[in-house]
């Protein structure tokens, strides 16, 4: 079924089209949720909520961009709302000092590559992780992030800076990145 046919099917509330759309995109979308969620269970709750929104609001899809991008935005906003609703984010985002956070080798999962990187991101405190996800991966600006998270733009910037530094530390320890001769960081491809 083409994407157009899938959208039409979903517009007509056809279960087969809805299921195909779900099967096609749910693995990527769950990965998005997983980066924001506290655990896999929460991620699945977010995914569920997000897909219900997608199916009920698909008539609002304007065909201006890719369907995946539109779905992804809905999923990301669902994740943020979920965190806000459960008061997990508001507590976590106040954490600005992570000097005490000590990452040991044992905490770093030894799972291959993409999953390894995702797991490293997930080791960050929730506030840092959220800002990092929104800025570095979803491509939101700090201004947009400030609006989404109801925080100051400067807070978003500082959170991101710290998140990046912390992640760099983790990736270095995991040998996913390395320093070159000029003491610049390089990415180690596997």
């Amino acid at each position: 079924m083409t994407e157009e046919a899938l959208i039409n099917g979903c517009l007509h509330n056809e279960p087969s089209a809805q299921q195909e759309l779900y099967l096609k995109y749910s693995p990527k979308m769950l990965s998005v949720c997983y980066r924001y969620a506290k655990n896999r269970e929460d991620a699945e709750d977010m995914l569920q909520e997000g897909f219900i929104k997608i199916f009920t609001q698909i008539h609002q899809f304007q065909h201006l961009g890719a369907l995946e991008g539109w779905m992804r935005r809905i999923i990301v906003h669902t994740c943020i709302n979920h965190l806000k609703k459960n008061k997990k984010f508001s507590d976590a985002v106040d954490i600005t000092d992570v000097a005490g956070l000590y990452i040991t080798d044992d905490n770093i999962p030894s799972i291959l590559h993409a999953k390894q990187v995702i797991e490293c991101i997930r080791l960050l405190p929730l506030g840092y992780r959220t800002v990092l996800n929104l800025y570095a991966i979803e491509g939101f600006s700090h201004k947009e992030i400030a609006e989404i998270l109801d925080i100051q733009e400067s807070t978003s910037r500082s959170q991101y800076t710290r998140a990046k530094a912390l992640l760099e530390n983790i990736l270095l320890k995991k040998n996913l990145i390395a320093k070159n001769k000029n003491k610049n960081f390089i990415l180690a491809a596997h």
Partner: protein
Amino acid sequence: MEHNDFSDAFESFLQEKANEHKLYPSDKVWSAIQQKINGPKKWPFVALTLLFVGLGLITSIVEPANNQLALRSPELVQKLNATTFKNLSVSQIKNPIFLSTYYQNKNNYSKSNHSSLLINNINSISPSNEVDNNSLALNPQEITIQEVTIIDTSSKPSIDLSISASNVVDELTEINVENTNTELGSTNIIPISSFQNEDDKTQKHEIPEILSPSVLKTSQHKKNPLNWQVYFSPTVSYRTLSGSGTVPVNFIAQSLTSGTTNFTNVNDVVNHKAAVGMELGAGLVYQLSKKIRLKTGLQFNYNQYDIRAYNSTPELAPLSAGGIGNNEINAISNHRSKNGYSQTWLKNLHAMISVPIGAELTILGNQNISLNIGGSLQPTYILRHDAYMLSTNLNNYAKENSLNRNFNINSSAEIFLTVQKAGLKWTFGPQIRYQLLSSYKKEYPIIEHLKDFGFKIGLSKTIK
């Protein structure tokens, strides 16, 4: 080795890896989405409807043929209408009709011994029908004779035809009646002759000597051996765990350096408590003999228990024998079995549907009250498996659906009291259900057997 400038490439690196990453959601997510957008699944209702329709069909199919009315043929009815009994009047005809015969000896009917003639649905006979002839045309293949009652309401004897469904005739197999007037010329025609009373006042009615070998064979009325049954049982659910966790070398080393404790015996780690579940079912019971019954049906089980755990920061939990780093199954866990920052109880639940196949044996009692034992094997499909698994290093609790077993076999044993009242059988008694196979697949080294203790309350009735 790919070389990129970190500051420029950091976001793209993260984006690339994030896009590569995929996670496959559990089936329950789609089920929940579908339920939200298209309403709840209808299959449980369909299944229940099918069950009850099936029970209804079985009820109608197994209705004993010998309880059915005999004279359906218009010809026979016509003949019957044209027939009169000399000196007899039909006082009442209802459906089914039992003609009770009373005789004292071979020739005289009395109340002491009786045979019965069951004629169902003879709607064409009215109470005022007078019978001229001594012959009554009946088709022995279509008639069940159970009881013929002759009562004397006036100077002439009359036949009381009343509903007497509870009467069961044990002995009568043949009635030989004389055909004195009408020759219908067929072995299928059963003549009943001369129910003439020679002594009205004594209320003893003589039947003439049997002159004709015409035989009316009767079938003995048997109680339907099938019963339907519904039952409910509140249960208390427990589990037994066996096996030992696999503690890889690096974990032992880690525990030595970190000071955390690693356990090898699963029961040293686990602290769980029972919770209330339930069992609900419907089925059929077949009376194989006086004391033995076979049963089957459809049963829904709901089982739950709680595990004590401790909240922790996210940790990787190995869930297969190989442990972390051996390309085995791992999960992220926020719960430790020991030494977390706060205690919590994790809810574990299972919903399952099964087809019990079993037997019951009456060990004491009579028809009205009896003590029974029963047992069954129950092929089971797990509808919902929402439970935390202990990691194989015994440090964490996590969920991993891929290790759950979808099909299982339960066994059950019960002892119960049956009380029959107003045609209904009530059953009460304790029961135990035990899951024969582990809840988890072989890849998971810890073996869990669920067990439920309950008190069953059931209701059954003979299918008519």
